[in-house]
């Protein structure tokens, strides 16, 4: 196990190197050129040539790449060219990162707190009505297209539609929970984060439930657990301990899935 981890860690820089080359190349050879975008409809061939030279876009690929990676390794990711002209890219990332992390962490906590027990239970009572409904709901949660879910949720959350409580005459709307309308990040205790966190944790819950359920079934199927169960020993203990390794794996995999989850919520909040 340790040897495996070390081997993978040695490979990490190589993988990162290729990722950086691919990303850089896609950016460089992708559509258009930052100078053209910057100039818009006012470009003249002279201006284009002048700016290409000032920014070094006329240099060969490897020179530009080395320049970029050399600076990046020293923590300088360069300066934004078009959208936030002359702002350091590292700073732009640092400004957004805390919000992304808070959102993800909250969704992750809610996701694990609900997803793990649900998954364990569903695994223990495989094929019961409980398992059936947990499985169905988690499948729906992972596969419902966000481009359909968002219009529906945004509509539900809109302030224009009032929900009348049956037990009193008061009306209330989900409007305060509508994300992004205020244009300011108000922290995780603001109602504005409910919708993004809801959507994000929905995905977490679904994935965790499915993984835990599969893990449970796997463990319960193993010989020693069967024996233990037959002998009447505490199922939970043996099952959970034997899963320790898989749990570790799941938690190690979180950063990656957290990133892809957060994309989901970003899309949700920009639509």
């Amino acid at each position, binding site marked *: 196990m340790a040897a495996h981890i070390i081997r993978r860690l040695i490979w990490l820089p190589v993988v990162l190197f290729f990722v950086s080359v691919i990303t850089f190349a896609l950016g460089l050879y992708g559509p258009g050129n930052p100078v053209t975008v910057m100039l818009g409809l*006012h470009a003249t061939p*002279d201006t284009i040539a*002048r700016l290409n030279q000032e*920014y070094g876009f006329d240099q060969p690929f490897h020179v530009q790449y080395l320049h970029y990676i050399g600076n990046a390794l020293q923590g300088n990711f360069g300066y934004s060219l078009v959208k936030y002209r002359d702002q350091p890219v590292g700073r732009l990332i640092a400004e957004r990162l805390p919000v992304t992390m808070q959102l993800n962490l909250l969704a992750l906590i809610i996701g694990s707190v*609900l997803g793990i*027990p649900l998954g364990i239970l569903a695994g223990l009572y495989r094929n019961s009505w409980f398992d059936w409904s947990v499985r169905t709901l988690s499948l729906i949660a992972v596969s419902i297209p966000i481009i359909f879910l968002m219009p529906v949720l945004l509509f539900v959350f809109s302030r224009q539609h009032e929900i009348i409580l049956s037990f009193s005459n008061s009306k209330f709307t989900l409007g305060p929970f509508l994300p*992004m309308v205020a244009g300011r990040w108000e922290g995780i205790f603001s109602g504005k984060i*409910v919708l993004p966190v809801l959507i994000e944790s929905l995905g977490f819950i679904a994935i965790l439930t499915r993984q835990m359920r599969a893990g449970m079934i796997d463990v319960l199927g193993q010989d020693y657990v069967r024996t233990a169960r037959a002998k009447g020993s505490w199922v939970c203990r043996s099952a959970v301990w034997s899963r320790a390794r898989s749990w570790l794996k799941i938690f190690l995999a979180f950063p990656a899935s957290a990133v892809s989850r957060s994309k989901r919520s970003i899309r949700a909040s920009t639509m």
Partner: protein
Amino acid sequence: MAEKSDNRWLIGVVVILVVALVGAVCVGAGALLFLSQQPTTAQTSPVPGGVSTPGSSAPKPGAPPAATRAPSSAARNVLRLPGEEPPTLDPALTGDASSAEYVVEIFSGLVMLDKNLKVAPDIAEGWKVSEDGKTYTFTLRKDARFHDGRPVTAQDFKYSIERTANPALASHTAETYLGDIVGVKEKLNRKAQAVDGVKVIDDYTVEIKIDAPKAYFLAKLTFPTAYIVDKNNVERGGRTWTDKPNGTGPYKLQEYVRGQRIILAKNDNFYLDPKPTVATVEYILAGGSAMTMYENGDMEVVPVGLSDIERVSDPASPLNKELYTGPRLSTGFVVFNTRKPPFDDPKVRQAFALAIDRQKLVDVVYRKMPSVATTILPPGMPGYKESDAKPAFDAAKAKQLLAESKYAGKLPEVTWTTTGGGGTTPQGIQAMAAMLKENLGVNVSIQQTDWATFIGQLNDPAKNPYQIFDIGWIADYADPENFLSILFRSGSTQNWAAYSNPEVDKILDQAGSEKDLTKRFALYQQVEQMILADNPVLPLTFEREYWLTKPYVKDMLYPPLIIPRLRYVSLAK
């Protein structure tokens, strides 16, 4: 048996856990709901005589919640409106409307555009133009100050121009707006150390020499590229000096959180009248549901989009009273590349132009938001001549013209290139392609491409591979030259149709240096008709501004060009 009881015990524990957590989440959500309402009460309660106490905040039947919230904003003297993220706040790098919107409030220059889009004195209180029209002498106001209190002098202007022309700054607007000044192009191309054309006579007098007499030069100086920046501020702040800009304009930058908000605070020492009265202007940058926020009373001003326009235009709608609509100096065109077959034949161009039913397109697809364009110059532009002529549409004549053209019966493949908002092929283009098929029997295929590639090709008119495409032009300054010369003079980079008519070129040059405005506009109107007769483009739409303004906001301007406008606004208490 033992197994079962074990399981039950386990289940019990897990169920309790889940219930407890769900409960906690619900309570948490309740707390969130409570907390999220806190700021609202906090905002409204300090208002003297304000409406809201927590108990009374439940909306009365029939009364929109907005009504109870509105006065608080007015009383706090805050104007909230949606804003776009500015690519830069550096005047020298400003080339787009979203940046200019803020830059014109924070900074200022020698001259500006007033409410009527006329060039008016700003930091310069007056100027003289020499006989040959090539030397401008500006006298600066003595009371103009930077936000930190330092007086503005002629050296500051000189420094600003030198900085913009510094090739290392890589300003992309320098040539367009300052290129007429002697020495700017040389410095940009590293052929000169300094801009010879700008001379400081004394602290409050500056002289500018341009390369040829140009009636529109002063209009160009109103653009942020020629604005004044503070040398100390720029040099101390380094590359990100605009985080704390020390400008001269009517508003100061109080706070800028990227992706969230820009807050401007009024400059009490502003030198011009009227002085700004609204204490704080808050631009909300996170887009999305500005309209919802407006209706909820969370914004004072909002632009109306395509999806809301019918609802808002309905006279029965309460919002209709708050609607402002006016021109924007922008024309949408269909461009025929006169160098590419089949559009090298004027008859084909005319046939295509006649086969597009612009009225229907605007009515149905664009929901009447823009108006149909029949001229190149948009309404509001000096020299614009209103015509009662209906937009020409004649399918029979179009077919006949096509049959008379040299491509009759052997029309090459026609591909319409379009960029698309958000990537997808715009509906208007799909509709026009369908009209061409129906009215002319021509199969036009649509090719959607990204903006960067598109302008990259357009900027090289000699090699532009696109046969027919759609594009809009927004005026940089209120002068017909900005449309007619830039788009149709031979050799201009923005002459997308690759149109060339020596007669037209001659009149354009003549109009460019004509000092008498009436004569000048007459020349432009004449040349406009000549161009239209040749059909290098089909003017499609005149864009319009649609804004909703809360009734308690007074004198909010929606000019067709970006001008400093916030100092005119006031909020009724």
